């Protein structure tokens, strides 16, 4: 155990002093946060305005919609709704069967969709609609600023939470004799590979959580962004993101003999691309993808984390987080199994 701790401390030191780690895990996320904040400063921090929603007057759910503070409900017919949609007086129209009609994609349309999904989900539980908690505040029950582009920051947090990928790559490289010179030394030492990997990953996990914390503190205290209302669940997703990142790094690190620099670039490209699909560059991309390829949001781990951070903190929805937790956990298990396959060999055909 003392050897594990000692390994952990030294590998942690080595990581913390690594300029690559400092740049990608600490500086780069803060620079991105500053960039997004500056680029969208005119839009961010606007007070949220109620979303105008048309609802069929005969709908069984009118009273439910009216209970929701964020919605400004207009009881109108379908014909009237079409006109109001065209003139941008309402963002969506819900008919008697809870079918949603929208003119275009946008954040308000997404909020309406989330609320509808929630109602359908509750309905699916066979709970009488009268018993549905009409006081649920779907957006900002906790004085949350409803930043229209807050999704960008959630994506950034999700992306950075996976930056354990770099430590994963480094740890694997250090123990594989066919990947690094230090790996040769490690393989000759009376040290079990699993012990080294565990201590490397624990050290990396701690380092990455520290870097995540720095980013969150920076966003909270410097940029004054109030992103979290449900801290416990949010942290759960961020920590799982860290484990996912480490697992992905181990898989990238162990699966090929490219240099660590090349692997780091692969990791940056993968996480950046997944973040792009999750709406980091523009929330519109996410909205379009959610409409055209809805499965993508369920299989893209960064999207899963982003969506859940958004739902948990912005919409106050916490009862369907298990799907997201399960998806990321499956990723972690699968990635670790693949890495195990690559790492289990103890002698090499060539080094």
């Amino acid at each position: 155990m003392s050897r594990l701790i000692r390994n952990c401390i030294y590998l942690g030191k080595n990581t913390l002093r690594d300029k690559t780690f400092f740049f990608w895990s600490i500086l780069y996320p803060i620079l991105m946060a500053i960039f997004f904040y500056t680029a969208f400063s005119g839009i961010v921090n606007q007070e949220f305005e109620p979303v105008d929603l048309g609802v069929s007057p005969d709908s069984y759910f009118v009273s439910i919609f009216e209970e929701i503070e964020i919605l400004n409900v207009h009881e109108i017919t379908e014909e009237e709704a079409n006109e109001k949609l065209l003139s941008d007086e309402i963002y969506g129209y819900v008919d008697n069967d809870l079918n949603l009609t929208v003119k275009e994609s946008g954040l308000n349309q997404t909020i309406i969709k989330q609320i509808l999904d929630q109602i359908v989900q509750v309905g699916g539980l066979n709970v009488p609609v009268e018993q549905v908690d009409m006081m649920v505040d779907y957006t900002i029950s906790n004085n949350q600023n409803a930043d229209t582009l807050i999704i960008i920051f959630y994506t950034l947090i999700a992306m950075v939470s996976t930056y354990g990928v770099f430590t994963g790559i480094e740890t694997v490289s250090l123990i594989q004799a066919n990947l690094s010179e230090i790996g040769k030394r490690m393989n000759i030492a009376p040290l079990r590979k699993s012990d080294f990997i565990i201590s490397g990953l624990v050290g990396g996990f701690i380092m990455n959580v520290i870097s995540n914390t720095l980013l969150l503190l920076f966003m909270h205290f410097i940029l004054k962004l109030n992103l979290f209302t449900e801290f416990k669940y949010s942290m759960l997703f961020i920590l799982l993101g860290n484990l996912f990142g480490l697992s992905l790094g181990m898989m990238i690190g162990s699966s090929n003999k490219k240099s660590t620099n090349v692997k780091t670039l692969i990791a940056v490209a993968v996480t950046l691309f997944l973040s792009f699909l999750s709406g980091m560059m523009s929330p519109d991309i996410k909205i379009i993808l959610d409409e055209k390829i809805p499965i993508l949001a369920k299989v893209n781990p960064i999207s899963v984390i982003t969506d859940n951070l958004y739902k948990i903190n912005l919409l106050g929805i916490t009862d369907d987080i298990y799907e997201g937790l399960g998806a990321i956990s499956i990723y972690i298990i699968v990635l670790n199994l693949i890495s195990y396959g690559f790492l289990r060999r103890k002698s090499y055909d060539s080094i």
Partner: protein
Amino acid sequence: MVVKVNKLVKRYKDLIALDHFNMEVKEGEILGLLGPNGCGKTTAINCILSLLNFDKGEIQIFDQKMTPNSYEIKKQIGIVPQEVSVFDNLTVKENIDYFCGLYIEDKHLRKQYVDEAINFVGLKDYLKFYPSSLSGGLKRRLNIGCGIAHKPRLIFLDEPTVAVDAQSRNFILDGIKRLNKEGSTIIYTTHYLEEAEMICNRIIIMDKGKNLVSGTNEELKSMITTTEKIVAGFSDIDEEKVEQMRKLPHVIDLVKREEDYIIKFENGINNLSNLLEFIKDNQLTYTKLYSQLPTLNDVFLELTGKELRD
């Protein structure tokens, strides 16, 4: 026997890297593995240390079969790899302490060993330096410090003097001799024949994955017919005189290398005086004239037909 390798075969697809390679190392020896680059020295070391799979053969260390899980054997081994293998973001002291700690759990004993290793490699003034700020020679010393701090019984040094300045090279070679005097058995790979001659008790000459010959420096030199070489430079010699010189007693070969003539003799007695007499009789003027005993390069040359440095 500290190390015993029997008929080791290692193939990389069609290339045979080790071809029934044999090696025995006794306690307290400095064994030199000498051979040109690519002859299989590092491959042999990597196989012995269970880093590489091999196709055939047996390897024993301390009379036990060596496997990747032989942790008890590994505890008694130190390795100084060919490349500097240290953590870039740990200081000199941290690096030596880290690697020593992989072997020595007792904190006080480890501290003592680390201090001794630091003194041994002469890095006391660089304790807080990071490897990137050390010169090539100092990095090599750190590499050695990390490999020997735990006082191993058997040390593998894989070309530890490559690309170091003369001062560091001498420091390293002296250090290896000291390690040996302190009780470590050493396996030393190199393609510098002077180093092998200088520090090794016994030498194995390798080529194309095979051990061509093994023995002490003197034993190896006695295996070849050349017993003396005379290097001579002339300001005025024609081809006829060169041919006459070739016919002097005991001359087995005469080659011209740049401006000099290298004359090889199979008998080591009176060759220089015979040559001086020839020069006097023919009124030749020499610019240089000296005698050399055969080197390991001559041994290699005679055995393989090529120079060790080719």
